[in-house]
């Protein structure tokens, strides 16, 4: 519940192309922030707060907000937006927010922030999209893999993940192997009304050595690390749970803390990776057109944290490393990223010592699809009643 509102004038106006990115970072500025908005002109920031703030707290909040803004906008190169496909003007039969109907029909049940269980209709729709993504993987004769939900902290450290995305990490730990601690925990632990687990102290928990995995393809790179890729190149595929904490940005199926991603992953020389990424895009173009998805493919950047944001975004843009599949959400006149075509250059090859037969570092790339998001976008475009759906999907489901 909003208890107070704070309006801040940024030291420099926020350029239009950065408003969404900057706004999303305010979620991590302070725990008292419930919601943040930036005026369309970029000259005012409104923070909605859980409780009234003192003059000192206000000054502290303002300083943090100004730090976020200045580090993200000053000296930034305006990213080049390249549109590879545009089918956003496809006529669509549904223009309402599907959330209301999804909840009414018990197709969507929230367990906690950013964590949902899904009902039969959404599950079948996800299974259908999965079958199409597996069809793409099979067209490359991709090797199937199964990866765990946990990933070693040492791996994420090695690929600079802590520096680039500290805000979205989810840590996994356990009670220390100590009978007294386990006994004490079992007797005293409880959850309060806000869902917080209260144990007697944090020292009960072991040091963090594992996290919940933020991406599927990382596990493949980890399995290939510190050895030559004797086969010269590799195409792999896997589906798995991914975890990216997004604080107050977690909203419905649009932005989940725990989501499922199907990836087709390419490892090998530069040309092999880039050519296959392009072939994958063309094959998906046919599939998306067949199912009638309204979408656009355009250049994009990853949600780097403020310290690395400007440089990494400019770098990704300059080298055309990432293209997002952005599906239309007609009820709000916006789009949602449901997948991406990525090229990492030899970043993982160098950092993880994955070498090609000639001794050079391997290049990597992946095509990734967010399963809950694509189902959600599809329902936002075609509604929950299957009689509005294209025949191919209706018959398959």
């Amino acid at each position, binding site marked *: 519940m909003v208890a107070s509102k704070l309006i801040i004038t940024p030291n420099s106006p926020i350029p239009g192309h950065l408003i969404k990115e900057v706004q999303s970072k305010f979620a991590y500025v302070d725990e008292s922030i419930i919601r943040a908005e930036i005026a369309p002109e970029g000259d005012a920031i409104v923070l909605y707060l859980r409780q009234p703030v003192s003059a000192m707290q206000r000054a502290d909040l303002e300083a943090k907000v100004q730090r976020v803004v200045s580090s993200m906008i000053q*000296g930034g*190169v*305006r*990213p*080049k937006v390249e549109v590879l496909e545009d089918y956003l003007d496809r006529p669509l039969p549904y223009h309402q927010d599907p959330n209301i109907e999804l909840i009414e029909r018990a197709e969507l049940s929230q367990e906690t922030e950013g964590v949902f269980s899904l009902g039969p209709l959404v599950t079948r729709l996800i299974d259908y999209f999965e079958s199409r993504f597996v069809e793409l993987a099979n067209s490359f004769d991709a090797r199937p893999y199964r990866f765990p939900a946990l990933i070693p902290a040492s791996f994420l450290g090695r690929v600079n993940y802590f520096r680039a995305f500290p805000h979205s990490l989810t840590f996994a730990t356990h009670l220390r192997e100590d009978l007294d601690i386990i006994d004490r925990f079992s007797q005293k632990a409880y959850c309060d009304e806000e869902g917080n687990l209260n144990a007697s102290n944090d020292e009960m928990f072991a040091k963090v050595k594992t996290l919940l995995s933020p991406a599927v393809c990382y596990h493949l790179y980890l399995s290939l690390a510190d050895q030559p890729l004797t086969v010269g190149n590799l195409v792999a595929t896997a589906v798995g749970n991914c975890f990216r904490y997004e604080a107050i940005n977690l909203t419905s199926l649009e932005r989940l803390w725990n989501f499922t991603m199907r990836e087709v992953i390419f490892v090998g020389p530069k040309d092999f990776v880039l050519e296959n990424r392009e072939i994958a895009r063309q094959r998906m173009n046919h599939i998306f057109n067949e199912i009638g998805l309204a979408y656009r493919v355009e250049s994009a950047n990853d949600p780097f944290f403020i310290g*690395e944001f*400007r*440089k*990494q975004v*400019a*770098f990704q*843009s*300059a*080298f*055309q490393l990432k293209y997002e599949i952005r599906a239309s959400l007609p009820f709000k006149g916006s789009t949602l990223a449901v997948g991406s075509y990525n090229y990492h*250059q*030899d*970043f993982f090859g*160098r950092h993880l010592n994955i070498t090609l037969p000639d001794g050079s*570092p391997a290049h990597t790339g992946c095509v990734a699809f967010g399963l809950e998001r694509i189902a959600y976008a599809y329902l936002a475009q075609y509604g929950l009643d299957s009689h509005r759906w294209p025949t191919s999907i209706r018959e398959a489901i």
Partner: protein
Amino acid sequence: MERELNSTLEGRIQSILADALQISPNLITPDLAFGDLPQWDSMGHMEVMMRLEEHFGIEITADTIAQLTSIPAIRQYLTQMAQMKE
């Protein structure tokens, strides 16, 4: 004269790269390219671009950032920019 200019430019590029990548100037060879040293990674590259902009008073576009991936490419680009200013 031209050789002198090139030699000066070479030295300035070497110094900028050493500062930006926080490495010894001795490691900067005339043909060094992006990825040859662990420090010249994506973040290092953008640091180099920003230092070049500051030092030479130029604006490097997103398209150019992707082309300036070696010392010869940087040298050629800066020479062209200097000629255009004359």
